[in-house]
């Protein structure tokens, strides 16, 4: 009986899904029909050098702040205090490992000491494997010829991460306990993460001056949200039965927190730390634009001279640092599980190894403090032992590719640009704004339900108000095309990885590297291949966003219960049928999440796209960072990116929830009892 009812409901729902598809198609058809006569009207175009009153007001605001800087007590009492404390921490860390200090020509701890301390630390929080990885990774910084820059990057990252954790973990715990705080915090965190960095780099120097503090604070803004969010999530998902047991025994709130909630959420919190470290590292590179020292400077400078090789080897150092930090924090997370169940013998042995390593570390510290050979990384000053060769090899390879693949890449660019991007952009950006708004609202309603409409309407209204409607629409078109490509890659590669362990083992490290390699590194070869064009920006965005989508899809496919796949295979399904009828539908949640994340990641590359010919919002953000007159316009463009992000994120999330609810109804979701 219930089964029958379920089937009936599923038929209805499927029909609903079909109707929804038809409805969207209908809306688009009407749009195209209206677009033909209305094309080019009311597109709210504004030429690059023109300013709207809003942009001028933002300029004035900037000037006003700038003028009061010296006299306002807000600065001396608030911003200066923050700046000085952050500066003090950063300079201290730098003088430990990267910059000459205390009257010495070298930092307090030379390379040998740093390698030893890092290795010791990796073993202490992790295991022997990551300790070995750490030793190798840190040594490679010197071999690549970027010892000091790497240490600067590390010092800044550490400073930012320490502050992130000091603020983020308590805040996250609080947000985990208080629904109200969580509600207030969520949009703020969204904003912090989607606001393009370029937008706040220049104002930051206004408030916190030029120097390490601004770099660290820029990094903080970007890197703090993950640890807050994930900590809150961890606290929230502590099993209620454990909390209730504590309460029933008369535990106070504090006792519950200390003995139940935090220990049980610890693993998740360490995951948050891991994410924050990764974000901080990627941001420290960009902070080079406001003179944050380190590897980012090398990359940026290489970019000015189109020196692909040097940019790459510096990028490689960043990737290595990211991998080391990621693996160490991941090992620390696993350690949370294993450490308390180690037998007394294992614990004793570990203690001895720790003590041994500790002694070695102390010796290394002493040596690197005292002797030149242990302080300066040996090898040629420029390029290090292998850095020069790496750089030359990459430059040669990049030149060869550009020279020989130019025709092919041009063809690809033209096919996608003329076949997909131009028509789509023409439809979106050349339609009157009210037509696009109506279409967006209608589609949002159809795919995500009526509750999304007010949010979408507010976003659209603010976009109109930003004075950058047409630019936003051009950016939207490119974003959609990039997301389509990301999802195509995500599904194809993700399914492959999800089904084959070997493919997974092969591809995953590449994906990890693509995600942490600073975009600046691959811009030059891409420019050589595709020219300054929106397509280059799309490719850059795909490189950055596809790994996330691919991994999510792969994990989803992997998460499909083996028994279901077995059942499908045993009833004679072909591989194709298993994929399309079992694995993908069951991994639906992961696929929709991948689409959502893909979109957000693509959007976060809008500004980088502006650097390579995407124009529109990305270019304006960059220009606003560089040109005094366009400051306000750039700020508005940054806000417009955030608005697009909110619009797309909320709509896709709501649509996913809706799909999901339908799927749960059909019993597709696992782990739900009927």
């Amino acid at each position, binding site marked *: 009986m219930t089964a029958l009812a379920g089937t009936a409901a599923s038929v209805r729902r499927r029909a609903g899904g079909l109707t929804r598809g038809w409805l969207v198609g209908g809306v688009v058809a009407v749009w195209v029909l209206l677009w033909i006569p209305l094309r080019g009207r009311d597109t709210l175009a504004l*030429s690059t050098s023109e300013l709207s009153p809003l942009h001028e007001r933002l300029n004035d605001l900037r000037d006003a702040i700038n003028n009061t*800087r010296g006299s306002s007590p807000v600065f001396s009492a608030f911003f200066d205090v923050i700046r000085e404390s952050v500066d003090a921490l950063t300079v201290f860390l730098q003088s430990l490992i990267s910059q000459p200090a205390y009257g010495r020509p070298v930092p307090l701890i030379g390379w040998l000491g740093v390698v030893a301390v890092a290795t010791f630390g990796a073993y202490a929080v992790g295991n022997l494997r990551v300790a070995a990885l750490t030793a190798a990774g840190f040594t490679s910084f010197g071999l690549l010829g970027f010892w000091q820059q790497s240490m600067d990057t590390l010092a800044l990252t550490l400073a930012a991460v320490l502050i992130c954790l000091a603020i983020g973990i308590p805040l996250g715990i609080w947000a985990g306990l208080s629904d109200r705080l969580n509600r207030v915090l969520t949009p703020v965190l969204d904003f912090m993460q989607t606001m393009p960095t370029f937008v706040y780099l220049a104002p930051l120097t206004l408030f916190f001056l030029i120097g390490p503090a601004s770099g660290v604070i820029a990094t903080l803004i970007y890197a703090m949200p993950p640890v807050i969010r994930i900590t809150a999530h961890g606290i929230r998902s502590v099993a209620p039965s454990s909390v209730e047991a504590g309460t029933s025994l008369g535990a106070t709130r504090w006792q519950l927190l200390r003995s139940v909630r935090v220990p049980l959420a610890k693993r998740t919190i360490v995951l948050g730390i891991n994410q924050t470290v990764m974000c901080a590292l990627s941001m420290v590179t960009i902070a080079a634009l406001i003179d944050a020292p380190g590897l980012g400077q090398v990359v940026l400078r290489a970019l000015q*001279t189109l020196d692909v090789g040097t940019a790459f080897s510096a990028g490689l150092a960043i990737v290595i640092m990211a991998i080391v930090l990621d693996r160490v924090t991941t090992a620390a997370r696993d350690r949370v599980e294993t450490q308390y169940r180690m037998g007394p013998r294992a614990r004793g042995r570990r203690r001895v190894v720790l003590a*041994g390593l500790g002694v070695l570390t102390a010796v290394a510290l002493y040596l690197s403090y005292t002797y030149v050979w242990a302080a300066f990384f040996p090898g040629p000053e420029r390029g290090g032992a292998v850095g020069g060769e790496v750089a030359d090899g990459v430059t040669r390879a990049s030149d060869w590719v550009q020279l020989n693949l*130019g025709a092919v890449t041009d063809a690809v*660019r033209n096919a996608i640009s003329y076949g997909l991007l131009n028509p789509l952009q023409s439809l979106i950006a050349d339609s009157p704004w009210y037509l696009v708004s109506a279409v967006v609202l209608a589609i949002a309603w159809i795919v995500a339900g009526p509750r999304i409409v007010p949010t979408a309407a507010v976003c659209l209204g603010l976009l109109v108000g930003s004075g950058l409607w047409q630019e936003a629409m051009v950016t939207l078109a490119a974003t959609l095309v990039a997301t389509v490509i990301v999802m195509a890659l995500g599904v194809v590669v993700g399914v492959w990885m999800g089904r084959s362990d070997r493919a997974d083992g092969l591809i995953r490290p590449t994906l990890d590297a693509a995600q942490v390699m600073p975009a600046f590194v691959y811009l030059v070869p891409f420019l050589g291949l595709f020219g300054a064009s929106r397509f280059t920006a799309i490719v850059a965005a795909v490189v950055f966003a596809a790994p996330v989508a691919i991994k999510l899809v792969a994990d989803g496919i992997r998460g499909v219960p083996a028994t279901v796949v077995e059942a499908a295979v045993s009833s004679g399904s072909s591989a194709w049928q298993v994929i399309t009828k079992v694995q993908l539908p069951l991994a639906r949640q992961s696929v929709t999440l991948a689409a959502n994340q893909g979109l957000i990641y693509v959007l976060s590359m809008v500004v980088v796209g502006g*650097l390579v010919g995407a124009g529109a919002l990305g270019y304006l953000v960059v220009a606003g960072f560089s040109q*005094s007159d366009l400051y306000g316009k750039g700020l508005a463009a940054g806000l417009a990116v955030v608005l697009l992000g909110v619009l797309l994120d909320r709509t896709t999330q709501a649509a996913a929830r809706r799909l999901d609810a339908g799927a749960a109804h059909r019993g597709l979701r696992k782990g739900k009892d009927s």
Partner: protein
Amino acid sequence: MSNVVIGRFVAVLTVGALALTACGSKIEDTPSGTTSRAACGTVNIAVNPWVGYQADAAVIAYLATNELGCTVNKKNLTEEVSWQGFGTGAVDVVLENWGHDDLKKTYIEQQGVAVEYGSTGNKGIIGWYVPPWLAQEYPDITDWNNLNKYADKFKTSESGGKGQLLLGDPSFVTNDEALVKNLKLDFKVVYAGSETALIQAFRTAEQQKQWMIGYFYEPQWFLNEVKLVHVNLPPYTAGCDADPAKVACDYAPYDLDKIVSKKFADSGSPAAALVKNFQWTNDHQNSVALDIAVNKLSDDDAAKKWVDANRDVWQAWLKN
């Protein structure tokens, strides 16, 4: 591994490490400040993100450090942020300023935190350029009157059916959208978004004989690699660019100048005199820039090379 073995292993390593200390030189503390260092003090030089500027900064920093004993801090900043630094004390010197009348108004006239410090001797030329192969095969292309004739050839996927005029660095205030309109050119302005993108585009265009026209400027190290050819727009006359919307003439030549903070100018530091006297030619700058950009010398090495070869030029800068 038993504890004993581990312990012995550690002991051996420790002894070995201590043995190493016998060889190797110790780190000496740096002497804290010579007399000349005290007299000069610290100079904060903003380094804007192009190689020509980097060349200026390399040479000034080299001389200030080695001849005057100053402590030089180079800060890699964009122009806008550099000027902010005058007010906050983070920046003392901007070595190559391209116009920026708006910033001058804010920081020199209104806030009074900066002062103009004379020309660098470099002439900044901004305009439209084509790759050399194009100028060779179609010599008439360097006259703007003929541009429409070739507009079709300049079409790309980005230019919406018109010819593409590629703009570069977002730092520059450009008149190109107005120029295209006012000269009735069948072109569309496309923003490459960065100097890097622009240079790469010209490089590819020359290598693969592609049609390309874009915004460029000298002095620029890339011109030593690929000698781009300037396209002549209606010549600049004083005031022809007064109304940005009605511009129909070429860009004004820039006299690149130096800006320093008021505080630095009043400090009486010998470095201030050095900056004030600093003047050289486009060729000088290009040779240093080329060493940095193409020959991959470090800033200091490139500066040293030039300083060693041009003693007579910089000797004059050191006089008070």
